[in-house]
């Protein structure tokens, strides 16, 4: 699986000296180096989606353990419920909801962008801002309501 290396090319409008001819004949600028890349929220959203999936992989172990505790009967379930109600358990639970909302919102952003929509600078930034920031207030709201209606208590 060897790709032919991009070869340096001369293209009109090459003010950086970094244009290369891709294997398909396109003349494109080299990707900027990490050190000169300007931070933008679309980048944060992209990275956070991967982070969300990694966190979800870890979090799902807790969900499968919850299913297992249920299948092992009332005593095992009581133990699991006590662990989930402990301060550390509630912290993990909050993380799970934040990850879930992040998955839904960032996944929606990803899906919209994959269909070729929402790719103007303005809309891509707006979608990314929602995907990056909204999961936290949503998760807080989720737990505030759970506590308020007495479904969960310390």
């Amino acid at each position, binding site marked *: 699986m060897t790709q032919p290396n991009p070869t340096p090319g001369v293209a009109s409008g090459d003010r950086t000296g970094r244009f290369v001819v891709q294997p*398909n004949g396109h003349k494109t600028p080299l990707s900027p180096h990490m050190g000169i890349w300007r931070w933008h929220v679309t980048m944060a959203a992209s990275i956070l989606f991967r982070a969300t999936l990694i966190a*979800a992989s870890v979090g799902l172990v807790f969900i*499968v353990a919850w299913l297992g505790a*249920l299948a092992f009967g009332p005593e095992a379930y009581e133990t699991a419920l006590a662990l989930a109600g402990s301060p550390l358990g509630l912290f993990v639970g909050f993380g799970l909801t934040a990850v879930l909302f992040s998955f839904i919102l960032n996944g929606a952003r990803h*899906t919209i962008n994959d269909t070729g929509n929402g790719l103007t600078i303005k809309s891509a930034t707006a979608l990314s801002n929602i995907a990056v920031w909204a999961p936290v207030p949503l998760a807080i709201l989720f737990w505030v309501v759970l506590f308020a209606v007495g479904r969960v208590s310390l």
Partner: protein
Amino acid sequence: MSGAVKFKNNVKISERHGGGEWLAERVLLTALLPLGLWVASTGFTLAGAAYDAVLDWFANPLNAGLLAVTAVLLFGYLSLAWKVILEDYVPQAGARKALTGLLNLVFFVLAAASLFFIVRLALGSAPLPAGFGA
């Protein structure tokens, strides 16, 4: 590389299987978005619920069925997602293949365990380890 390199609108198209994986990722993610909303509402319903209440929830075939579908699609999606992440960050082919295989195995085991537990709960089976030597 086998076969002639093909282009569509001057963009190189996938030579073997990349296109199929991309489509699978999109289809799985699209299906998981509404299921994710359902999981959020389910989490709200079942948070702190008593054992009998949770078993009642599982006794509804729609609940158990949707949960089983969610588990299979989600673990399948995560398997593809980890493959992409490893392809980006693990340049050594051997280590990458080993890690991809290991994670596929982990996700397969987690999905199988989920289905096993969900089916038992949906059928109202006696608590484990009933049927396994106890």
